[in-house]
């Protein structure tokens, strides 16, 4: 039994709006192979992809699955970013879909919310979504060297962490990402959005099998301390969540959102296929996930350097 301070946590509301995809009059971004490209991916309502689908292979950049929300007021926006936790419940509070319920699955340029598609057919840009935020300050009482980030009690339970014979915490993960691949996001704190793993070296990504990961997968990064900052620290371990899809940009790739981190390595990963929050939080079935197999498609930008 994992003892936590969950009974002491405070649950409260933060909010955002379904945010439009935006462009400007020169929307080209440069790919890692030196080509101008325009890709869809961030913001708005994604009708085709949900958490649980493969993170690679789409004609998209930084694909945000489901519904992307933010708030126009800076203070509200940062409250939403810092306090919404993965696994928190979301409720549509305006528009035709008022009352529909979903789940927070990521925090990137927007907070990402998954809804059952049938409940949001009439969801519109600008509709208000409220998050019942709980998880900030969550502590594992018997493992003081392990910090949590954006981890709701609901997701902690779904992760099903185990304590091994030596008394060390263990987390099941679908993959380990070597620290030299950790890229964009190192300039931010561990409590703000995610850090991409870099996919510019396509050969190495394929060798490591990292092109098989799915949105929603739980992964580990060894020798990375994501307690307060995000950096290389031998012996540290970080457990994260794949929140957005691959990218064509140098230094970018699927986003890893920090969930647990230990500077002293007080949490140990072990490989556990299928460790994905779409399944763990009961958002989708494994039959649904099997309709999109990793490796079925290769993005046009995923060419060798």
């Amino acid at each position, binding site marked *: 039994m994992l003892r936590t301070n969950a009974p002491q946590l405070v649950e409260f509301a933060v909010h955002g709006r379904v945010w439009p995809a935006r462009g400007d009059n020169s929307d080209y971004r*440069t*790919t*890692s192979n*030196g080509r101008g490209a325009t890709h869809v991916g961030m913001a708005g309502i994604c009708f085709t992809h949900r958490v649980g689908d493969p993170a690679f292979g789409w004609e998209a950049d930084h694909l945000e699955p489901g519904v992307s929300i933010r708030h126009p007021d800076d203070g509200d926006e940062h409250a939403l970013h810092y306090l919404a936790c993965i696994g928190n419940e979301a409720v549509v509070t305006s528009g035709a879909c008022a009352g529909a319920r979903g789940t927070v699955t990521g925090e990137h340029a927007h907070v990402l919310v998954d809804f059952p598609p049938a409940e949001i057919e009439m969801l519109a840009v600008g509709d208000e979504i409220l998050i019942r935020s709980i998880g900030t300050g969550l502590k594992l009482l018997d493992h003081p060297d392990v910090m949590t980030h954006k981890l709701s009690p609901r997701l902690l339970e779904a992760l099903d962490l185990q304590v091994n014979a030596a008394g060390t915490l263990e987390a099941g993960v679908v993959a380990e990402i070597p*620290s*030299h*691949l*950790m*890229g*964009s*996001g*190192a*300039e931010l*704190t*561990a409590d703000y959005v995610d850090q*991409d793993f*870099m996919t*510019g*070296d396509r*050969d*190495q990504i394929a060798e490591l099998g990292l092109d098989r990961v799915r949105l929603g997968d739980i992964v580990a990064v060894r*020798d990375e*301390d*994501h*307690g*307060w*900052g*995000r*950096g*290389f*620290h*031998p012996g540290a371990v970080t457990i994260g969540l794949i929140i957005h899809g691959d990218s064509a*940009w*140098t*230094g*970018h790739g699927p986003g890893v959102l920090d969930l647990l981190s230990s*500077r002293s390595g007080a949490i140990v990963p072990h490989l556990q296929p299928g460790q994905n929050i779409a399944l763990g939080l009961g958002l989708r079935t494994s039959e649904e996930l099997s309709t999109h197999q990793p490796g079925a498609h290769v993005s046009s930008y995923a060419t060798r*350097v």
Partner: protein
Amino acid sequence: MSDNRSQLVGVAVQGSIVSPQCPALPASPYIIGADGAPVLLPPPGGIVYNVAIGDPAFGWVADMVQPGVSIAAPGGANPALRGLACIGNEAIVVSGRARGERGTVTGKSGRFAEHVIVHFEPLVLDSMALGDQVLVRAIGRGLALSDAAEVQLKSISPALLDALEVQSGESGELVVRVMAEVPAVLMGAGSGLTSEAGCVQIQTDDPAGISEHGLDGLRLGDVVMLKDFDCRWGNGFVQAAATIGIVVHGDSVRGGHGPGVTPIITATGGRIRSQLVADRNIADLLGLRTAVGTPK
């Protein structure tokens, strides 16, 4: 080696000397170290009197100290200033008590600072004020080597290219003398960001690794090679890529942070080879200081 410098266009870009920036109340004034310790330190920017190009990159009680003077421009002029200014470009003070004094661009800082860093003689610093306007005679953008089309030059003035004395190796690779080589695993903040207008940082939360690679003796202005690191169109890991850069700002206590390196030469596929030497610093190469390396 021949290049296209005769075709380059020199343009003026301009910024003013920035004030150090701290968060407004009631925000906490502290930055948080990699180990979680809150500290209040001088932030990057402003006029720095006692740290100059050529001085050590480590050991200062400051966050990412930028030697000399840091300038920025308002709005859309800042990306132009940061994008076009090249290391080694001449800078001229055009307002205030130091008007007419001349200095040299020595670097550019990354996300959240976003300054151009300029060296002036100590006596000039004494007559400067925050807000003074500094014009940079920007030239170097588009500079390319005639016989090495796949090697990209960035933020490097023709004057610095000359001073580096790069050579062609036996297999046609570019040979560059550097002070140190940095493994890709140590590259932190700045990964995934632009390689044209800022820097990428050598992260220092592994002191043993830093000294193992001889990086603890780095100085501001040192020429280094980033191994397996591609800075052609953004900064990121690619095996057999290499980037030559200049150390532009000092160390940091933050996780993922440390001395910043502004990329100046970059290529994939082993097209750049480094040659380790005991001394390679732009303070010497550009004649900005004499006797670099003597303790202050």
